[in-house]
């Protein structure tokens, strides 16, 4: 294992892969998490091949029918095949979770790096905004943004990024403050490295481990948030399917078709759980102090 002092960004990627491998091999829960994620991503990616029907194909003679050979999970209130809707819905939920978290990470890491490295007024300004945003519970913030920007998939994504960056900024700033004073940074500075080079080449790679963990957990949170906001009708709009939206339509028909709301809920829980499992495993694998300790 390379020491953390001399990895570069490309090296950081290798470290990540190795940590992932370590987590999957040695951490039982993250093995489970990894395969659940693999399964859900595969079903979403190959939805057009796997789905028995078109997700928008209506059959008004066959409304809210229970599970049958033709429709494994039954049909919705306008006769669309539920299995197909859930498969396509997974694309929306997972992609939104992934993209918004990565964008939030990019913004948060940059601002956190800046705050930690520059200090002073820049640091104070960025961190007070972070504190202010953290005064809002996640859901309340997203609802407020839905009110201000309007509902819809894109606006929900924007709101997720506007909230999510805060966590990354906090983590990276804390890491930078730790790393900044280490002898190797001082050596690089003495060798004449510019601020930008110090930040990107020397400090950033050593702050990435907790960021990777936070991305994994963040994707889970974003999926949960998407489902909550879409459930309230302020996220993904019809006729597009997402797990949260299907859950709401299912709730409206709870007594007639319980599977309609139960299955998307299981899918959401599974994906969030899988992200959390994998995040925990990665945290242990990336933190050498925890390695070799209790393996769950």
């Amino acid at each position, binding site marked *: 294992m390379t020491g953390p002092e001399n990895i570069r960004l490309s090296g950081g990627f290798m470290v990540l892969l190795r940590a992932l491998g370590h987590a999957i091999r040695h951490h039982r829960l993250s093995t489970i998490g990894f395969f659940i994620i693999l399964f859900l991503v595969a079903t979403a990616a190959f939805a057009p091949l796997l789905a028995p029907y078109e997700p928008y194909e209506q059959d008004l003679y066959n409304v809210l029918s229970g599970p049958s050979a033709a429709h494994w999970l039954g049909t919705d209130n306008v006769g669309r095949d539920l299995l197909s809707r859930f498969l396509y819905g997974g694309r929306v939920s997972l992609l939104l979770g992934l993209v918004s978290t990565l964008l939030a990470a990019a913004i948060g890491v940059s601002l956190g790096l800046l705050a930690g490295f520059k200090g002073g007024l820049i640091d104070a300004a960025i961190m*007070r905004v972070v504190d202010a945003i953290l*005064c809002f519970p996640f859901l309340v913030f997203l609802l407020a943004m839905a009110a201000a920007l309007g509902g819809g998939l894109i606006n929900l994504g924007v709101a997720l990024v506007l909230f999510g960056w805060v966590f990354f900024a906090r983590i990276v700033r804390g890491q930078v403050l730790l790393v900044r004073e280490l002898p190797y940074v001082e050596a690089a500075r003495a060798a004449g490295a510019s601020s930008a080079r110090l930040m990107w080449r020397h400090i950033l790679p050593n702050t990435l481990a907790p960021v990777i963990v936070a991305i994994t957990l963040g994707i*889970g949170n974003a999926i949960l948030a998407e489902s*909550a906001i879409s459930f309230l009708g*302020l996220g993904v709009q019809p006729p597009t399917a997402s797990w949260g939206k299907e*859950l709401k339509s299912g*709730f409206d028909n*709870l007594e007639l078709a319980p599977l309609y709301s139960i299955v998307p809920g299981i899918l959401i829980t599974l994906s969030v759980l899988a992200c959390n*499992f994998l995040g925990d495993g990665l945290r242990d694998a990336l933190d050498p102090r925890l390695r070799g300790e209790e393996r769950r």
Partner: protein
Amino acid sequence: MGRFIAIRLMHALIVLFIVIVLVFLVTRLIPGDAFLVAVAASGVEVDSAKTVKVLEEFYGLNKPFYEQFLIWLVNFVSGDWGESIGTGGDVLEMFLDRCPITLQLFFWATLWQFLIGIPAGVISALKRNSRTDMAITTGALIGFAIPPFWQAIVMIYLFAVLLPIFPPSGYVSFAEDPMGNVMSMALPSMVLGTSGAALLARYVRSSLLEVMSQDFVRTARAKGLGERAVVTLHAMKPAMIPVVTVVGLIWAGLLGGSFILEFVFALPGLGRMTVDAIYQRDFPVIQAMLIIVSLNVLFMNFIVDVLYAYLDPRVRLR
């Protein structure tokens, strides 16, 4: 200690100011549409452009930005929270009307959290790596990942539709029917308390495990104390200190969770009021609720910080 409190208070006030500015800016994005919606909903045939202008004047939206901000801030502090665009009611009165319902929900959810979360965490730590520990740890992970509204749906289906023990939704006031009140709160508060209970269990477990490996616990064992006495007399108290820090998190979770659960269970509390206001883009209500919610979190975090410093002197000296 006084210096510590003063610094934290200053910090909280600065953050509060930024929060207020943010809320003001965000809610200023809302109007316009809200008036058009209200005018259309009223069903009265009017020149809508003209009406919107009159309404904007009435709500003070034609004044310069900083002036609007100052007027609004002064009014808000002096208890004039404006009028709802949707219902025309006084926002402060609406808030005070709905408050007791949400507080009841919080009360039961908190009780539930502590009754489940703390014992689960203690048992899990004491029986580390056993089957019971596995079950509790996994249960906590699941409790944290389940979308609360889905859990609510499953509970409604199981305990209100299949086995009709509890009412599926709706609110009964305590004065009207005490038993009915408790029954109507049971399902929503259980669901609302789940993620907090899971969080508590995880924190209590790791905190107690850390304390149990300390020297003074070994000393207590070495002098011949029974395991029960070691845990209750020596380990529990220091183990509970870091747990205090999650109370702020849990409180924020309750506030967020109640927004969606009051919607699912049709409880006419603050959360339901806010979600309705968001549908109608009723910005005076949204504005007031955002301030209240963030003030709550800020206040809770302040209390937690001070309490933590009081309980653990090392924090004060840093």
